[in-house]
């Protein structure tokens, strides 16, 4: 079995589990929506909300990332499937990529929903010139968060108290994505600066995605082996 086919097999299985259990659809997506709405109530200032909407989108995405990563590894540990995958000789890098692809797909869907919510609730609007920047940030942000989430999810999977350990490990590491994606989305939505100002921030997010993609591919095996 080729490496790519194995990665695809893992990704398809994770998405199939999600489709069967509907955890993301019925719990994570509504949770992210509630975060957006609650912040709206708390701030209660139309102009301010419009300017902070990109940041709220990313904050809601971060919180949801924690839940999605926990879920992604819970299904592996629930009945000892991770051990079985190791025994089956499944390539650890293919496992990393497969789980990252499935997580990225869910994050991309979630972020698309949250951006629509920001437009509806906070009156944000996408500049035509900002659309490519928004799409590039959306894709690289989803992939970057998915790779770092999978890497740290694998690290925490075998640890005691992993539910509390994961946020502690993950949130500081994703700060560059939080900052970079927020600035880029702000530029794309016209909340701050010009579209041109947003591209370097998108570049930061893309570099982050590449770094954790390479790091995860190399380090995931030893991590889950421990």
């Amino acid at each position, binding site marked *: *079995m080729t490496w790519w086919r*194995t990665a695809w*097999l893992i990704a398809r*299985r994770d998405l*199939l*589990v999600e489709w*069967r*259990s509907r955890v993301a659809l019925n719990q994570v997506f509504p949770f992210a929506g509630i975060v957006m709405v609650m912040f709206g109530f708390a701030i209660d200032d139309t102009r301010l909300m419009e300017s902070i909407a990109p940041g709220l989108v990313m904050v809601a995405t971060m919180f949801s990332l924690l839940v999605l990563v926990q879920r992604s590894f819970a*299904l592996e540990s*629930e*009945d*000892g*499937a991770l*051990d*079985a*995958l*190791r*025994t*089956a*000789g*499944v390539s650890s890098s293919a496992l990393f990529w497969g789980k990252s692809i499935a997580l990225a797909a869910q994050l991309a869907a979630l972020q698309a929903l949250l951006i629509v919510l920001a437009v509806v609730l906070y009156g944000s609007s996408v500049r035509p010139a900002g659309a490519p920047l928004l799409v590039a940030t959306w894709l690289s942000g989803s992939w970057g968060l998915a790779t770092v989430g999978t890497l740290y999810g694998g690290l925490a999977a075998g640890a005691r108290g992993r539910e509390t350990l994961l946020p502690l490990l993950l949130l500081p590491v994703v700060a560059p994505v939080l900052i970079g994606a927020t600035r880029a989305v702000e530029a794309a939505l016209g909340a701050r600066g010009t579209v041109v100002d947003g591209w370097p921030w998108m570049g930061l997010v893309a570099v982050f995605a590449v770094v954790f993609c390479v790091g995860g591919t190399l380090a995931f095996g030893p991590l889950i082996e421990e």
Partner: protein
Amino acid sequence: MDTVADGADAAKGADPVGAVAPADPVVVLDDAVAVLGRFPALAGISITVHRGEIVWLRGPNGAGKTTLLRLCAGLLPLARGTGRVLGCDLATERDRLRPLVGVLGHRNGLYLDLTVAENVAFWGDTVGAAATEVAAALERLGLADRLALLPVRRLSAGQQRRTAIACLIARRAELWLLDEPHSGLDAAGRDDVDALLRQAAASGATVMVASHEYERAGPLATAVFDIRGGTVMGTAGGSVTAGAVASPRDAGRDR
């Protein structure tokens, strides 16, 4: 596939890596030590197991039976001594060994939200098994009808165990390492498992079973290991041999 034999034949054709000639031993451990944390869970075990044997590992809880199975599966590193399983060196070729081995531990390794058929298909896909092999594995374990479409979470413990064994068949394992395979099964299910293990052994697979169920494992086994304190205290039957062993204290000191 009507029997396990067909799956084993397919495995031989599909993946010659790690293939062992019929006369060659499948498992050879010499003074093998495996450590859990700082504790030598296996303290210098020397054994030889030949193809087609059904080996029963018996002993009290904490004796090292599960650790021995995990070592043979390539899931634990060898801390001292030497070991070859299916022709793969346990010190350097654990990655090559793993796809050839099927492990059924205390947990089943299933995805509880997926259906029985989806689980067996997934594990079959990891070794490139054909759809017909997956269907045959389901059929053999009596899971081909409406059970195949049920999520594993909704099955009884015994049905989940059967599903896990179907996954092993779909994976075409050459060495079956089973930890309490009868647990959770009713009488008919236990008979099915016994018949299946005999078929697997007859078709060239090798089976190592850790079990506390003397009335089940006894008649099934062609050889027996008595394991206590991480060492083999005695053997009976078959071509299995146990060599001299070090005490747990010695093994820990050598590290």
